[in-house]
């Protein structure tokens, strides 16, 4: 016979204000199977827990019910206390009489009766609780970092510096990401390349980092501590071991007019190229779509001039399988372009801004490339249309962002600051020019951020105009910008030479596909979701996968770096143990009843269900049944609900327990 102990918490006054806790304790004391019941002001406090432990030992209790707040809040606390008193922690359950009762009711009498019912149900349930052993899984102490921008670089360096091997995978030919494209960075105006490239070199030289550039994630299998990742290394057409990075091939390549994506297509590159001179690795790639050899079978000049003979037209895509224990996702962002309407994009387009057809209407990243000393203009601000220096430049904020009906509802977060920076860079480079900014709000929360923005106005003489632009159109070689100043309450018109749009920060293209491969969740914009917005901001709901940088939502560099280091710290926490302990709230298959329909496998969001063959002693196959990998199972219970033969049970939430609870009502 079980001896159940019930502990009713007042939660200060949160519960006792509406629920007569003494009465609940005395009523539940009469319930069959309950050996002990009491109440206390703060059950979660140290004296409260001591009371619980003492009662377990003195009353020889076998099962525990704590009637207090939500199990999300304190289940772990009480299970730990129960374990310390010598009981299996999974013999302790919580009855929620705060969120489910006292907080939502006013009538004291009725609330008290409801609380008695809730506690009674949990008593019936806990009677059927089984002793569950903690699950342990081995941990492979290597990690995968997806994305070689500043987030990926920082995470990789931090993990590698702790002595664990890192595999860094980057889709582009070079690591560096968007930060390598920037000219100077707010709020200190230090040169992005100067702070970025040394880190890129550190990655390349680190003995613990294995770098795969021009590579993509093909397949992810396994679970926390035990992932198998298949990486597709795309054919570079240049042997990385032989290439010395001398660059002769690039000077000789006859295809010289290919728009360089790294320079936002305003600079040109050859068909065999490195995206920018400081690229890591400094090994060129042949762009097969534009290469004469691949188009016509003639040319091959690069192969002829290459001293070490590194150019290899026959190279094929390769698949590499790596075993890792943790994954950091750092795929970053992409800028919305008003020139296109991406398939399935929520953004409706900006006809009033000419759909991106006006050549001197550019986006923020293009301005960065114009302002960058290593950019296509050598750091001079010149119009893409005629190469003239713009004397009147207009910046417009919130293009796409903060426009529910137009595009997306969120704030892109970095635009206010980078536009303030742009006005400064412009003022430094074009002394007789004037910068205007149309804005709705200036959002500058961050260390030294507001001061930076004010500086752009007070010292660098940018004219900020609060109010949005309704329309802009080409008139001669000018762009007429029609806006309004809502502080004055009049329409404003500016004839600008150039317009820079602060377009929305969006996730990388293909973010959803990667998320599906990884089995992580994402929001409607395809930003990856964290496990808890406040308390678990760098972890995915899927165990063993962590987030860093703008793939989770718009972020600036300081924030990205912080999160990358945080993700690295989470990986290190995981790697600090040889075996990983997991809660044993997982599904189990009763093999005798399983008919092998695998409906459960289809609905499992975590890929936890495997196929298991059952053979007799002679080795003849009897049947194939479902098997739940306890290392992967997250205990959501979807399989249990789906199973047509009722052969799946979720430990701690078995049908028997649920029925017992209903019957107790």
């Amino acid at each position, binding site marked *: 016979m079980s001896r159940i102990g019930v502990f009713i918490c007042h939660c200060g006054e949160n519960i006792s204000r509406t629920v007569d806790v003494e009465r609940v304790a005395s009523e539940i004391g009469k319930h069959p199977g309950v050996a002990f019941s009491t109440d206390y002001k703060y059950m979660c406090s140290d004296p409260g827990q001591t009371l619980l432990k003492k009662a377990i030992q003195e009353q020889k209790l076998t099962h525990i019910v704590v009637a207090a707040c939500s199990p999300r809040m304190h289940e772990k606390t009480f299970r730990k206390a129960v374990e310390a008193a010598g009981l299996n922690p999974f013999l302790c359950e919580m009855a929620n009489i705060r969120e489910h009762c006292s907080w939502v009711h006013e009538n004291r009498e009725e609330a008290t009766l409801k609380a008695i019912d809730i506690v009674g149900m949990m008593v019936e349930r806990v009677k059927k609780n089984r002793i569950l052993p903690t699950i342990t899984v081995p941990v492979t102490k290597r990690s995968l970092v997806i994305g070689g921008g500043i987030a990926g670089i920082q995470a990789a360096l931090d993990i590698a510096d702790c002595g664990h091997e890192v595999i860094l995978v980057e889709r582009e030919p070079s690591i560096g990401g968007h930060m390598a494209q920037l000219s100077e960075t707010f709020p200190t105006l230090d040169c992005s390349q100067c702070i970025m490239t040394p880190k890129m070199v550190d990655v390349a030289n680190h003995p613990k980092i294995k770098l795969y550039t021009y590579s993509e994630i093909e397949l992810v299998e396994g679970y926390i501590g035990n992932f198998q990742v298949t990486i597709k290394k795309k054919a570079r057409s240049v042997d990385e071991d032989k290439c010395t990075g001398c660059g002769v091939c690039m000077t000789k390549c006859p295809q010289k007019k290919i728009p360089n994506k790294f320079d936002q297509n305003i600079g040109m590159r050859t068909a065999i190229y490195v995206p920018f001179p400081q690229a890591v690795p400094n090994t060129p790639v042949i762009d097969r779509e534009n290469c004469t050899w691949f188009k016509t079978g003639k040319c091959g000049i690069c192969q002829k001039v290459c001293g070490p003979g590194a150019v290899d037209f026959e190279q094929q895509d390769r698949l590499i399988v790596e075993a890792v224990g943790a994954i950091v996702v750092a795929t970053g962002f992409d800028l919305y372009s008003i020139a296109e309407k991406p398939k399935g994009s929520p953004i409706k387009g900006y006809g009033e801004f000419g759909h991106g057809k006006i050549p001197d209407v550019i986006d923020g990243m293009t301005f960065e490339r114009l302002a960058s000393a290593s950019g296509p203009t050598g750091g001079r601000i010149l119009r893409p249309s005629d190469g003239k220096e713009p*004397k*009147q430049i207009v910046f417009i904020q919130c293009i796409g962002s903060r426009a529910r009906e137009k595009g997306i509802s969120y704030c892109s977060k970095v635009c206010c600051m980078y536009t303030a920076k742009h006005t400064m860079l412009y003022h430094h480079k074009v002394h007789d020019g*004037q910068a*205007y900014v149309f804005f709705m709000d200036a959002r500058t929360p961050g260390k030294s951020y507001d001061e930076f923005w*004010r500086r752009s*106005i*007070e010292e660098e*003489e940018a*004219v900020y*105009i*609060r109010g949005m632009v309704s329309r802009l159109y080409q008139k001669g070689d000018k762009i007429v910008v029609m806006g309004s*100043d809502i*502080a*004055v*309450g*009049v*329409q*404003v*018109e*500016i*004839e600008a030479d150039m317009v820079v749009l602060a377009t929305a920060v969006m996730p990388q293209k293909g973010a959803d596909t990667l998320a599906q491969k990884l089995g992580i969740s994402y929001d409607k914009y395809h930003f990856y979701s964290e496990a808890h917005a406040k308390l678990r901001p760098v972890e995915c709901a899927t165990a063993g996968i962590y987030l860093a940088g703008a793939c989770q939502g718009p972020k600036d560099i300081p924030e990205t770096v912080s999160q990358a280091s945080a993700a690295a710290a989470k990986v290190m926490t995981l790697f600090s143990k040889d075996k990983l302990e997991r809660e044993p709230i997982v599904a189990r298959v009763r093999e005798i009843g399983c008919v092998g329909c695998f409906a459960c496998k289809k609905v499992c969001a975590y890929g936890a269900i495997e196929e298991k063959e059952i053979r007799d002693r002679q080795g003849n196959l009897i049947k194939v049944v479902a098997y739940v990998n306890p290392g992967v199972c997250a205990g959501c219970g979807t399989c249990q609900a789906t199973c047509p033969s009722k052969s799946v049970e979720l430990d701690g939430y078995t049908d028997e327990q649920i029925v017992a609870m209903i019957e107790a009502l």
Partner: protein
Amino acid sequence: MKKKKMVISQETMDVDFVRKVEALADTSVRRCFQCGKCSAGCPMATFMEHPPNRVVRLLQLGQWRRVLEGRSIWYCASCETCSTRCPNKVQLASIMDALRKLSWDAEGPSKESYVQLANKLFLQNIRTYGRQYEMRLAAVFNVKSGQFLKDLMLGPKLLAKGKLKMFHSKNKNLSEIEKIFTRIEEMRKKGEAL
């Protein structure tokens, strides 16, 4: 007042005038971020077509003509509530002062405003008589401003109380006063005074 569209360019933004205002008021209009606290506390704001915050905003955009066209600067009572409470130390009361001073010579409609006319007549009287001759001031103002009967009925009352004299009396040291005027005029010519 009709709200004209504002065409902004380096030409239409008269920064020089604003610099003058800033120098006179010993403050910076660029510091203002349009929180509106000045207008919130201004006792005269309800009478102004451009409330104090908008006066600063127009100066930020170099649109001082729009400010001087209106009467806001003349309604300002110089109570300095705005300057006292401003989070950015924009000395708005001083700016109003500076604008009033600069409006004397500024081109534009402020020249024809009644305030400016009254000020001119006031000083003319001082120059002629060495002190104020209210009867003449009122009469000339009414004629020049075309409001012949303005406040006419106040005349007898003021006369009866001895507040208004029928005939003028001259200051004995008229030549000294003339010296002040000529000195200021010369200084103004040289640009030493406003």
